[in-house]
């Protein structure tokens, strides 16, 4: 990307209409900020987005059938999540919120392990200790999902800062929703990042809603991006449903961080097309008509139109892909569901590196006592 384009993307003030966009809703590309993906890359990413969406679908069904307890998905936000994760270099790290399983899978988390987490079974990376969608994958340089809003933001700053102190060229990218910009952690994170010029990339998924609370209840600022500017952190707004634009701005932010120019706040404008989670009924607070303008901007459909124009991925290939994913999910879900729960002893492990006397005692007490009548699995 040329430096002129770079300057046009990160401005000193951020206006409503300064939204970086590359892929038109009609499937055409704007050459100015085109990240220059090869046909194979686009097809690869599209396939991954389809996988993400089908996994989402399946998990909602499993929750409705009472086979898993919960799911929090990324319907409509796939481009913001997968595009930014794709822009990362091998050495970079991810500090997730809870909607980014698509990024974890893209970075190498095995789908099996993700599904094991959904069932909280003995093979779950977090040993059945956390809710579904609260997993970890260190091998993929993917942090540990936690529910409390915003906590990952400052941690990503510290991680990146440590790398800077140790003179390692790596970037820590962190995800959060626009609701999290109201949290202490957002302000602490941006402030520290600004003061210490840490190589952090902040991705604010502005999906319009924090459960039932709309964006105007989170801020009176015109944009979320401009909050970065107050902290001396260059900021950009991007069409979060545009895979190409998300990749372009994230790559640019990584380039800046790597060059010692510090952090960037990216506001990815997208829309939460589903409920907040399977526990939520959005019809109680959100008029269905609000979804209409976003249907057209669906991140998958947009790429598909582009692919159609280029002739890189036929409908037959798409059908085949969907059938394959379906079958694979059926097998993997069955395997995860059959996997037994974690052992009783595992409940007392990892509290400390070494188990102190009182946990040994409590574990022995549990093992010697009667079993609970209604374990979930």
């Amino acid at each position: 990307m040329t430096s002129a384009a770079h300057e046009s993307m990160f401005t000193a003030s951020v206006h409503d209409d300064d939204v970086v966009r590359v892929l038109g809703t009609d499937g055409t590309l704007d050459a100015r900020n085109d990240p220059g993906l090869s046909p194979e890359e686009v097809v690869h990413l599209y396939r991954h987005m389809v996988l993400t969406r089908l996994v989402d679908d399946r998990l909602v069904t499993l929750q409705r059938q009472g086979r898993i307890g919960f799911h929090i998905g990324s319907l409509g936000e796939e481009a913001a999540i997968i595009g930014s994760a794709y822009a990362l270099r091998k050495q970079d790290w991810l500090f997730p919120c809870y909607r980014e399983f698509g990024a974890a899978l893209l970075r190498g988390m095995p789908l099996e392990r993700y599904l094991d987490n959904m069932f909280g079974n003995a093979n779950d990376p977090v040993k059945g200790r956390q809710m579904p969608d609260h997993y970890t994958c260190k091998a993929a340089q993917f942090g540990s999902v936690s529910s409390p809003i915003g906590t990952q933001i400052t941690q990503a700053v510290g991680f990146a800062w440590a790398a800077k102190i140790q003179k390692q060229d790596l970037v820590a990218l962190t995800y959060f929703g626009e609701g999290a910009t109201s949290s202490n952690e957002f302000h602490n994170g941006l402030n520290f990042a600004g003061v210490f010029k840490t190589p952090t990339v902040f991705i604010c998924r502005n999906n319009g809603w924090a459960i039932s609370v709309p964006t105007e209840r989170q801020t009176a600022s015109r944009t979320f991006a401009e909050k970065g500017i107050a902290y001396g952190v260059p900021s950009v707004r991007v069409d979060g449903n545009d895979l190409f634009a998300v990749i372009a701005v994230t790559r640019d932010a990584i380039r800046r961080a790597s060059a010692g120019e510090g952090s960037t706040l990216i506001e990815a404008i997208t829309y939460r097309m589903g409920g907040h989670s399977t526990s939520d009924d959005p019809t109680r607070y959100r008029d269905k008509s609000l979804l209409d303008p976003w249907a057209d901007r669906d991140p998958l459909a947009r790429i598909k139109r582009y692919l159609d124009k280029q002739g890189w991925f036929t409908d037959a290939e798409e059908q085949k892909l969907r059938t394959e994913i379906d079958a694979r999910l059926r097998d993997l879900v069955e395997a995860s569901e059959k996997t037994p729960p974690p052992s009783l002893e595992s409940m007392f492990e990892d509290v400390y590196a070494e188990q102190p006397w009182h946990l040994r005692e409590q574990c022995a007490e549990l093992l010697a006592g009667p079993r609970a009548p209604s374990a979930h699995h």
Partner: protein
Amino acid sequence: MTQMNMVQAINDALRIAMRKDERVVVMGEDVGKVGGVFRVTSGLYDEFGDARVVDTPLSEGGIIGAAVGMALYGMIPVPEIQFSDFIWPAYDQIVSEVAKYRYRSGGEYTSKMVIRTPVGGGIRGGHYHSQHPEAQFIHVAGLKVVCPSNPYDAKGMLLASIADPDPVLFFEPKRVYRAAKGDVPEGEYTVPLESAAVVREGQHVTVIAYGAMLYEALDAAQKAAEQGIETEVVDLRTLWPVDIETIIASVKKTGRLIIVHEAPKTCGFGSELVSLVCEKAFYHLEAPPVRVTGYDTPFPYTLEMEYLPLSHRILPAILDTARAV
């Protein structure tokens, strides 16, 4: 009298308080149009409007800090923290400010408010939607901590809390939000804070419980009775300041004490209760006091029913304690 569950009873109390006193405001995340993620504030937004039923930005520190300011002005905020697991960003305001205002200002100011928050496990919530953090608040001088177990108490104690001159943490046991049903009088009434209830009488052993675990204690007591052990079950209702007289009277009667709580054992509220009983009724004890509690681990997901001190763990404790010589 109307049959209500706890959600309805708490909702009713809020409505009554808001109708009666326009200084009462409800604020928090998702409390407005959607009526709270557990629907406890359902319908209040329609009746009282956006100025008194306020969806706030996503910041617990902001919610409680702003509530302190409103209280200083003379309003009566009833902030909701969506899950008690998310109260920690507000802990500074609660511990350093809310709890200490009266004392540190020589009695000139108070930051009287009622902080409502759902607590407890057994709902497949994992670490961050299951904790029962009473100990962290009881330890802070200046806070009252309430945890009703049924709709009648929930309504009456919420109204008492709103009328109370001091800040109250009102813990709502979410596992029985809908399961606990009962007759609730229409209109205003209060259940005095600081009054425990003996909900089952017995002479062999005392079990103290509160919130959702009360039902587990009652279930175990029922099963113990089938084996000839008569258990007295005390529902604390208000955790702090605790109704010490009811506890001591029961222990003097039975000589045997079991405390049940979901929170971890170490430095849990049970530790304090055992100390109090030892201080005040040591020579009446005929067996070592026993705590049946959550374990000293973070709250687990898959194994949560093994973690919780449910009836299957309380019953052996009752039988052992009653038979100990």
